[in-house]
């Protein structure tokens, strides 16, 4: 089983710009049939700094930063990683 680590920034700006809905969509990937990966989602601290508030929502997937993230971008990235690891 492959492991994909997803970290979402929990600052107010990221929450306001949709981070909680994005988390919901990421977690829903674990229900996909045939997914050979374990997606761990954490959202327990601020990641972006005050100076970079225009990057909200900020998501980090296996160490890679995705700025102004939305659910479709993040889910696509996760699914790509799933395939890459499988291949």
């Amino acid at each position, binding site marked *: 089983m492959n492991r994909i680590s997803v970290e979402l920034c929990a600052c107010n700006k990221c*929450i306001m710009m949709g981070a909680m*809905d994005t988390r919901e969509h990421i977690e829903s990937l674990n229900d996909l049939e045939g997914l050979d990966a374990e997606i761990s989602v954490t959202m327990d601290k601020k990641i972006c700094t005050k100076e970079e508030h225009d990057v909200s929502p900020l998501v980090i997937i296996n160490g890679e930063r995705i700025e102004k993230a939305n659910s479709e971008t993040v889910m696509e990235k996760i699914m790509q990683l799933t395939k890459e690891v499988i291949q």
Partner: protein
Amino acid sequence: MRGFYTPVTKIRRQVFTEIAKLAYSDTDLSYIEQLPFKIIPGQVAMYRDSVFIERAIVGERLRLAMGLPLRNMTEPQPVANGIEECAIPEKFYEPPLVNVISFACNACKNGVEVSEKCQGCLAHPCTSVCPVKAVSIVNGKSHIDPDKCIKCGRCVDNCPYNAIVKFERPCAKACGMDAIESDELGRAKINYDKCVSCGMCLANCPFAAIADKSQIFQLITAIKNGEEIIAAIAPAFVGQFGPLATPEKVFAGIQKLGFSEVYEVAIGADIGAVTEAHHFAHKVATEEEPFLATSCCPSWSMMAKKLFPDLAPYVSSALTPMVATARIIKKEHPNAKIVFIGPCAAKKLEAQRRSVRSDVDFVITFEELMGMFIAKDVDFGDIGSTEPIDQATSNGRGYAISKGVTDAIVQQVHELYPDMQINTDHAEGLKECRKMLTLAKAGKRNGYLLEGMGCPGGCVAGAGTILPINKAQVAVGQFKSKAEKKSASENSFMKDAPTE
């Protein structure tokens, strides 16, 4: 449109944040003219045909967020038109609360159409099931006569290829009051005689064409004015502001905004649960009245009174949790201004009632509050240790979730009248609520306690919430379990409970 962060959500939240920033700053109010360009930057339209239309729509939303009316778009008017009048430290409200921005409306239609996926099959059950013979086979494909079609959806349900599509105007579909009509150009128009301001149309319009008026600018102005401002926050607040925002930190964050104190509205819910338990015992159990309908959701109680006027006497006259809590606060702090912070638009209208106006000075939603947190740069990650909250009971905190009101009142009936039987029914969403009252009107709910919630899921599903509904229900459940006192009657505020 709940549970998805869409461009509609984004624009709405940007508007609240920018208006809050404008209110906190000492910038000239004419700066509002620049905000559409800040929210919709560049030269290329992101969401519509033209960037100019996008900015004009944002301009209207900014006006509504200021509490101003929509502009008459047949006359040249700046966004800031009338802004000086609304820049006051008290509520500024001109009806209507919920507004359609006509030129943002897509003029969606209702209908049933056959798509290209029709295979022209031999069986064509679409024709067999149509009760008005509107479906026929033309040139080998299914064809629907729009003049005959009654949009029952039977052909849709029975097509083996899912080739027939029924589409409904989203705002009208979401409206439990049938209050969405059309103007001469086919755009949505609200019939305000029917509307109860539940906010479901604005939460479900995919074109961001419907919005309610806000009071954040005036609230922030009052805070800046140095007035004593006290928050009363609805039980659905738990979890709304993200995982770092524990209930205690939310209270601390609100105080950082300039509020002097924060009260749980669940206190008023506790009072309501006890009052309604007594009412049930004295009136319904004795068969003096046929049933008792709860009163905490203003959309539900307004719907009941508008559509079932003969049943109106059986809608509880107990103070809503908002009003009961506000009166308790006013007793302690007679000069304070009370701000109800909640999940829905309907409370804004409730606070306009003649009997409530003096109790509640402002009403804002969780989304609007979050805009204030961002504007004031209050971040929950920066808030240190906090005192635990111990104001309300598990019963009162449960009001945020559908059936929570019922559970609280039933528990009170069982505690206060141990031998009494109580039947209950509950409905979520105004359409379902109407069905429940239709049964009650027919005498099929005699002896019942009836709970109605305008939003499917309860208050946690209100139009002004941030957290996905399922997560919010879990968060409220956890906060309920943390209450030291479980039963509403144990609430220490009960001795000060206002009676009317």
